[in-house]
C-alpha cells in the first residue's frame, strides 16, 4: 500500500512538473485512506464496511493569482493523470477571472520529509472475535476503525513530503441497564490482546459503580475533577479558533482577551502544539514544515497558529498551521497531583469522566456551556458515592483553567482523534486531568 500510494503520488507530481507553462507554480497535496469500519450495538455488529479513497488538492499560482481544486483519485494511473490535467486546465481558465491576491505567499524552500509507520495492522477477524468474547453479556456499542492513512505534499519549488501511518481505533461504550454508561477507547498501531483485555476490564469495573442509585444534584457551585477526556472537550472547544491568528485579529477568538493581555489563565497552564512524536504529519497542507509551538506558557499567551495567508495579511511568520489554524497535536503540561490522589484531593464534589456538546455562552469572555456524559460520580470525603445524572455547566475558561484551577495531574492521557468526518483524522491531544475549586452547574 505504502509504495503504491507513494509511487502514484510521485507520478502525478512528475506529470504536473512536466506540464507547467511559463511562470506557473503549483502545490499538490494528497490524502488517502484504506479503512475498515465495524459498528457495534448490543455487542453485535450493526454495520460493517470498507472505504478506499484518495484525493489530491492542486493549487495553481500565476501572475499573483491563486486557485485550488480538490479532486478524487481513482487509483488508476491513467485515469488520475487525465483528471489532473483537466483540473490544471480548469484552474488555468479560472485564474484570469479573479483579481490578484495581495495575501498570496508561497514557501519556496525545497524541504523533504518522509515518515512511514507501516506496522502490520491487526487481523480484523481476530479483533472481532476478541471484542465479542470479552464483551460477553455486556451491552457494548461503538466503532472499530483501522487501516493506513497517507498524506503527501509537493510543490513546484521542489518540496516533497510523505507521511503514512497504519493505525486502529476502537472507540466504545458499555451501558448499564439503568442507561448510565462508561466510555472507553483502545487505539494505537499494534493490537495487544492483553492490553485490550486490561482496558475492557477497567471499563467493566467502572460500570459496576454506575449500578448504584443516582444522586440528583441541584444547580449550584461544586468542586470538581475533570478527567483528561473531559479536558479534551474543553481544550477542543478552545481550539475552535482560540489560537488562530486570523480569529484573534478579527476578534472572533475565544482567547482574544488572553492574547490581548487583558486576561490570564493559571500559571499551572502551559500548552504546546507538539507535532514532533505525534501521528500528525510534519508538514502542512499548504507546504510548510511544522515545528513545535508554545501556545500558552504559565498562563500567558505566546505564539499563534499562523497560516501562510494570515502571515501575509497580519505581517506574521507562517508556522505550519493549516488553513483553519487549529492545533492538531495539542499537548498540555502536567501538574503535580498524582492520579492516585485525585479522589482524596477532591474531597467532596464531582468526578467527571467526560463532557459533551460544548459551545459558547459568551465567546469573548471564553464562557462555555456543556454537559456531563458517561461516568460522572458524586464523591464524599474521597470516596465515590453515586453516579450523577446528566448536568449542564456554564463557566468561563478563565475560571476553570484560571482563578479556580487547583491542580493538574502528573499523569497525562494521549487521546487519539476518533473523528472520521470525510476521512479518518490523525490529530491527537496529550492532556492531564484538572482539579477545580468551582464548577457552576445550571440545569
Amino acid at each position, binding site marked *: 500500500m505504502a509504495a503504491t500510494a507513494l509511487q502514484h503520488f510521485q507520478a502525478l507530481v512528475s506529470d504536473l512538473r512536466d506540464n507547467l507553462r511559463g511562470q506557473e507554480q503549483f502545490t499538490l497535496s494528497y490524502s488517502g485512506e484504506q479503512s*475498515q*469500519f*465495524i*459498528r457495534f*450495538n448490543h455487542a*453485535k*455488529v*450493526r*454495520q*460493517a*464496511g*470498507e*472505504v*478506499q*479513497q*484518495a484525493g489530491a488538492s492542486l493549487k495553481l499560482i500565476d501572475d499573483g493569482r*491563486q*486557485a*485550488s*481544486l*480538490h*479532486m*478524487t483519485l*481513482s*487509483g*488508476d494511473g491513467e485515469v488520475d493523470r487525465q483528471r489532473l490535467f483537466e483540473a490544471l486546465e480548469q484552474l488555468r481558465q*479560472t485564474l484570469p477571472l*479573479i*483579481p490578484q*491576491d*495581495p495575501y498570496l505567499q508561497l514557501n519556496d524552500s525545497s524541504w523533504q520529509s518522509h515518515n512511514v509507520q507501516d506496522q502490520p495492522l491487526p487481523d480484523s477477524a481476530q479483533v*472481532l472475535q476478541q471484542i*465479542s468474547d470479552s464483551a460477553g453479556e455486556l451491552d457494548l*456499542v*461503538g*466503532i472499530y476503525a483501522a487501516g493506513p492513512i497517507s498524506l503527501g505534499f509537493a510543490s513546484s519549488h521542489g518540496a516533497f513530503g510523505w507521511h503514512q501511518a497504519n493505525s486502529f481505533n476502537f472507540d466504545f*461504550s458499555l*451501558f448499564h441497564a439503568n442507561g448510565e454508561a462508561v466510555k472507553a477507547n483502545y487505539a494505537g498501531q499494534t493490537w495487544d490482546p492483553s492490553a485490550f483485555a486490561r482496558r475492557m476490564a477497567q471499563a467493566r469495573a467502572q460500570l459496576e459503580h454506575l449500578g448504584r442509585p443516582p444522586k440528583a444534584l441541584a444547580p449550584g457551585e461544586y468542586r470538581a475533577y475533570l478527567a483528561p477526556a473531559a479536558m479534551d472537550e474543553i481544550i477542543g472547544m478552545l481550539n475552535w479558533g482560540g489560537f488562530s491568528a486570523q480569529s484573534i*485579529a*478579527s*476578534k*472572533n477568538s475565544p482567547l*482574544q482577551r488572553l492574547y490581548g493581555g*487583558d486576561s490570564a489563565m493559571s500559571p499551572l497552564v502551559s500548552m504546546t502544539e507538539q507535532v514532533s512524536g505525534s501521528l500528525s504529519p510534519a508538514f502542512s497542507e499548504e507546504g510548510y514544515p511544522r515545528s513545535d509551538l508554545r501556545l500558552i506558557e504559565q498562563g500567558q499567551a505566546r505564539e499563534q497558529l499562523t497560516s501562510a495567508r494570515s502571515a501575509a495579511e497580519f505581517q506574521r511568520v507562517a508556522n505550519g498551521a493549516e488553513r483553519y489554524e487549529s492545533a492538531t497535536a495539542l499537548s498540555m503540561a502536567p501538574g503535580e497531583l498524582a492520579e492516585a490522589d485525585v479522589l482524596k484531593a477532591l474531597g467532596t464534589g464531582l468526578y467527571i469522566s467526560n463532557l459533551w*456538546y*460544548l*459551545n459558547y*455562552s*459568551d465567546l469573548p469572555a471564553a*464562557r462555555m*456551556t456543556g*454537559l456531563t*456524559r458517561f461516568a460522572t460520580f458524586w464523591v464524599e470525603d474521597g470516596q465515590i458515592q453515586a453516579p450523577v445524572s*446528566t448536568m*449542564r455547566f456554564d463557566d468561563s475558561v478563565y475560571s476553570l483553567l484560571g482563578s479556580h484551577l487547583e491542580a493538574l495531574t502528573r499523569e497525562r492521557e494521549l487521546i487519539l482523534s476518533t*473523528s*472520521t*468526518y470525510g476521512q*479518518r483524522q490523525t490529530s491527537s491531544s496529550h492532556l492531564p486531568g484538572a482539579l477545580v475549586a468551582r464548577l457552576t452547574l*445550571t440545569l
Partner: protein
Amino acid sequence: MFDITASLRQRFAGLRSGAEFFSLRHVQQSDQHLSVRKNVAEPPSLGRDEGAMLTVRVNGVEAYAATADVSQAGLQRALDQAEALARQIARHALLDLSTQAVASGRADYASPNHDKAFPSLRDCYDLLARESASVPSDSRLVNWQASLGLSTIEQIYLNNAGAELRQAQRFVFPGFNVTAYDGQDSQSRTLGRENFGQQGGFDVVERFALNGAGARVAEQALQLLLAPNTPSGVRDLLLMPDQMMLQIHESIGHPLEMDRILGDERNYAGTSFVNASDFGHLQYGSKLLNVTFDPAIPEELASYAHDDDGTPASKQLLIRDGLLVRPLGGALSQFRSGLDGVANSRACSWNRAPIDRMANLNIEPGNQTLEQLIGGIEQGILMRTNRSWSIDDARNKFQFGCEWGQLIENGELKGVVKNPNYRGISSSFWRNLSAVGDASTNQVLGTPNCGKGEPNQVVRVGHASPACVFSQIDVFGGDA
C-alpha cells in the same frame, strides 16, 4: 444530466456476485466556494468528486465497500470485498435482514431551475465584492465576509431487483457576516452560512437578498455592540425562523431519529429521551404543535423523490396537535422496530452508508401575524439567528444562544439586547408553545452541517418554520 447512466448500467450488468441482493450507489459532485473578506477576494476553492458504494446482502447479513475506482474491475473488486466482509461478520451480526423488502422503483428527480445556468465565477465575485464594499467605514467594524457556496450532485442508484433511481441536485449557500469590536467586547451579525441554504439556481441568492445586505448587517453589528446585555429571568420567548430551525433540529429532529432510539448512536451522537413505546401516546407539545417530514417543498435542502436506500418519499405528520405519532426512521428502522416511519435513510456521499437522518423537518404554520404574536406578549424577548447550541446526549437539556435579541414589553418591541441565551428541557419546552405564526412569518431554511454517525457523516437538512412563542422560558445574557 445523468450522462454516465448508460455506461454505469453496463458496468452494473457486468457485476458478478454470490449475494442474494446487491446495489450500487454512484455519486458525482462538483463544488465551488467563493468569498470576499474585507474587500479582498479569497482564492476560489473548487472540487470534483466521484465514487460508488456497493452494498451486498448475504444470507440476511449486509456489508458495504466504497471505492473511488468506478471502472468495471474497481466495482467488481469492491463488490467482492463487501461480500467477503458480509460472510466474515455473519456470526457476529446484530440483524437478520433475510425478509426485509428491497427497493425496485425507477424514477428521476431534479432540483428546481437545475437546467438554468448559474452566473459565472467572475459575476459571482463581482456580486460578493459589491456587498463587501458596501460595509461602511467604521474603525469598530473589524471583520466582514461575503460568501457563496455551490454544490452540484448527481446520484444514480441501481440494484439487482431492477431499481434505477436518479437524482440531480444543486445546492446554493449564500452568506454574509460582520464583526464589530469596541476594544473589549465583540459582536457578530450573520446572514446565511449555517442557517440558509436551498436547492435551486440564482433564485436562491435573490431570495436571500444578498444585494444590499452589507450596510444593513454592519449596522446591526454596531447596534449589538452598543446594546446592554440580555437581562436574566423568566420571560415569554418569541423565536424567529432562523432560531426556530435550530430548536426544531436539536430538540425534535434528533430525538425522533429511530436509530438513536434503537441504540445505534449511543457511543457518539447519543440516545433519545423518547422511547419506541411513546409513539401514538406521548404529548410532545401543546395542541398548536404540528411537525411534518416534507420532501416536497422544491427549494428546501432535503427535498427528493427517494431516499438513499430507494424508499419513495412523501409528506408525513410526525407530531399532530402536539401528539407524537411517527418517528424519523427509514426502511431498515421500520423493519427493526415495527413502526411506520419515513424515507429518511441518507448518506453524505458515496463513501458513507445510509443511516436515519433528518431531511426536511418542518413546523406547520398557525394563524397569527408577527404583529399579533408580539402584541400577545406582556413581558418577553424576541431572538433571532442562532450562534450557539448545546444539548445533552438524550436531546433533552438544552442551552441555545442567538446573535440578536429585542425586548418586548406590553405587546411592543423595545430595545436591542446582546448575548441572548435561553435554556430548557425538550420534554417540557414544546408544551409551552403558546402561539404559532402564520404563513407570512414562515421561512424555508436549512443547514449543510448536521453531523452524526459512525463513521461520521455531515448532511444537509431543511427546516421550514414560522415564528413561534413559548411561554415562561429561562432567559439570560453574557458576562461582557
